[in-house]
């Protein structure tokens, strides 16, 4: 009798704390509290896709995108760029002989000269890039093959590089500094630019090799081991990478700020590219103080010390001269994409307006059926 009345009270859902005379203790009711949070009655807002919100949104987006796209396209078209491929695949290209006769252990380096003409003068800072094609710096095993602690100047990693650098970890029993496949494949062509004057004399174009790497890379990520004093002493007991011609402390002996691991060409190469066709900053041609163009139009010659073999994997090498704008290099894709998307949005807005007008009058008086 008592049990059944206790059960009945439980089924009612009332708090049975007071009716615990029949049970083993206070048993809490399982009914949730009657708060707004637990009964899902929180004040809420409900968005509905009505014509009043969607159609103006489409038109506004269309009207915003088209001017942005035009601005981007015009900016990209104003950037001057010049590209020249110097791999030496065809017989009549200047670097054909160097490309064919390449061997890893040749002591004399092969030099070839490429002539080109600039039709338009280049104003403001001109950036010189080297570009590689069909070079997969984004291959996973390649990307992992480096030791960031060693590159940050940690002494223990200098003598014992990480296992990820295999098989470029040791050479002849000595640890390699810098280790890894990325460092081993450092781009080592030398490109020099000469301007041919009216009277035929060759004049070297002045370039700077500082300021080509990211500030955070040069000052935070890459450090030389053992302070900045004699680098050949700091790197004693290590070997140079297998495919390098000179050791890491000989990369730029004249400038201690650009030697060793903090050499900017090395840092730029170590920042692996995401796509198989990429360009990396090589040198900067600073703008001239008065209003003379940085690179006037005319004939130029580029002298290349051809050290880097790419024909074995069907790659291509090229040199690019480019000016820069607020949106970066010359890439008309973004401008065209914005114009396209803007016009599609506008057109879609018109179509939706027609649909809305046609269908909304039909369903205006529809009631919800019971």
């Amino acid at each position: 009798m008592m049990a059944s009345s206790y059960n009945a009270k439980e089924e009612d859902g009332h708090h049975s704390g007071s009716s615990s005379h029949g049970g083993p203790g206070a048993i809490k009711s399982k009914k949730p509290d009657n708060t707004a949070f637990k009964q899902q009655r929180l004040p809420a807002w409900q968005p509905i896709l009505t014509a009043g919100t969607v159609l103006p949104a489409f038109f506004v987006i269309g009207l915003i995108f088209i001017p942005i796209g035009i601005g981007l396209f015009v900016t990209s078209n104003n950037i001057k760029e010049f590209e020249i491929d110097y791999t030496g695949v065809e017989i009549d290209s200047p670097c054909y002989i160097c490309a064919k006769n390449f061997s890893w252990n040749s002591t004399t380096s092969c030099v070839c000269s490429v002539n080109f003409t600039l039709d338009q003068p280049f104003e403001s800072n001109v950036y010189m890039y080297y570009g590689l094609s069909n070079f997969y710096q984004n291959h996973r095993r390649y990307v992992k093959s480096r030791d960031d602690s060693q590159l940050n100047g940690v002494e223990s990693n200098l003598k014992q590089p990480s296992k990820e650098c295999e098989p470029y970890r040791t050479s002849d029993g000595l640890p390699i500094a810098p280790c890894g496949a990325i460092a081993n494949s450092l781009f080592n062509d030398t490109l020099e630019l000469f301007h041919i004057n009216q009277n035929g004399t060759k004049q070297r174009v002045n370039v700077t090799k500082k300021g080509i790497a990211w500030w955070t890379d040069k000052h935070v990520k890459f450090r030389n081991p053992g302070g900045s004093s004699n680098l050949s002493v700091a790197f004693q007991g290590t070997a140079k990478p297998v495919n390098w011609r000179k050791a890491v402390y000989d990369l730029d002996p004249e400038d201690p700020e650009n030697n060793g691991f903090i050499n900017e060409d090395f840092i730029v190469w170590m920042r692996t590219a995401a796509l198989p066709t990429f360009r990396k900053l090589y040198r900067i041609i600073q703008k001239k103080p008065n209003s003379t163009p940085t690179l006037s139009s005319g004939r130029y010659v580029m002298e290349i010390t051809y050290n880097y073999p790419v024909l074995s994997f069907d790659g291509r090498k090229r040199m690019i001269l480019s000016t820069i704008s607020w949106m970066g290099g010359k890439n008309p894709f973004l401008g065209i994409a914005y114009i396209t998307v803007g016009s599609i949005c506008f057109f879609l807005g018109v179509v939706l307006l027609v649909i809305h007008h046609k269908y909304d009058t039909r369903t205006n008086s529809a009631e919800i059926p019971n």
Partner: protein
Amino acid sequence: IDCISHFTFFYYPKLYTPGQRNMYFNRTSFLLCIMQSCYNSLILFFIPYAALHDTVRQDGREIADYQSFAILLQTCLIIVVNAQIFLDTWYWTGINHFFLWGSMAAYFALTFTMNSNGLFFIFPTMFHVFVSGTGRNSLNQPNTWLIIFLTCLLCILPIVALRFIFIQTSPTINDKARKYKMRRDEIPAISLRPPATRRVSKRSSYAFSHSQGYGDLVTSQKFLDKKTPRRPLLFVKSLCKLAHMIIFGFFVTFTQL
């Protein structure tokens, strides 16, 4: 759960029919979900790929490197997924706002923390995770943000347009109810139908159970068509999100290998 309150459902039981008829969770809608995630994955990869092809930063330095590309894609993905949740949530409480905007804020906070110099000094060998300076160097470029804006809009706009078209041309009963509620702000409370006249009978329920009963209803096999879904609507949407992210993950992995 719709903002139409449960009282409305009580008065208009036909509002339950989309759920009973499996209109929101069937093979067609799952296939549409897969197609949408394939489209999103293609957009999320190829638009930044084409936009960053041979591009550099404002000061001429590199922007198309591996880590910057990865951060760009991740940011686009996070924004697209959050925007999709924004479009699918019909009932916005403070909790929804907190988690949606909070997750985006947490993503940016974590990105900048992982890319800070301090963490790099503590864990320099966790190369793939703690990269120094990438977030700052890539996300402070206007080019990057224009790419993000374009990609996210290109992923979201077809969904909005298609939903709008479907709401206009063939609205489900819930859409009609929402529109009605939006206009009038309160569906007029009709009085309950008077219950079916009860048989005032002195017979006990035992005797009543010996009447014709519901046998023919059971044997007519009408129950086989209507399978009530056991899971609420929100689970379907989170399943779609998961499908999005898995397909995108596969895509990125295949292009890396």
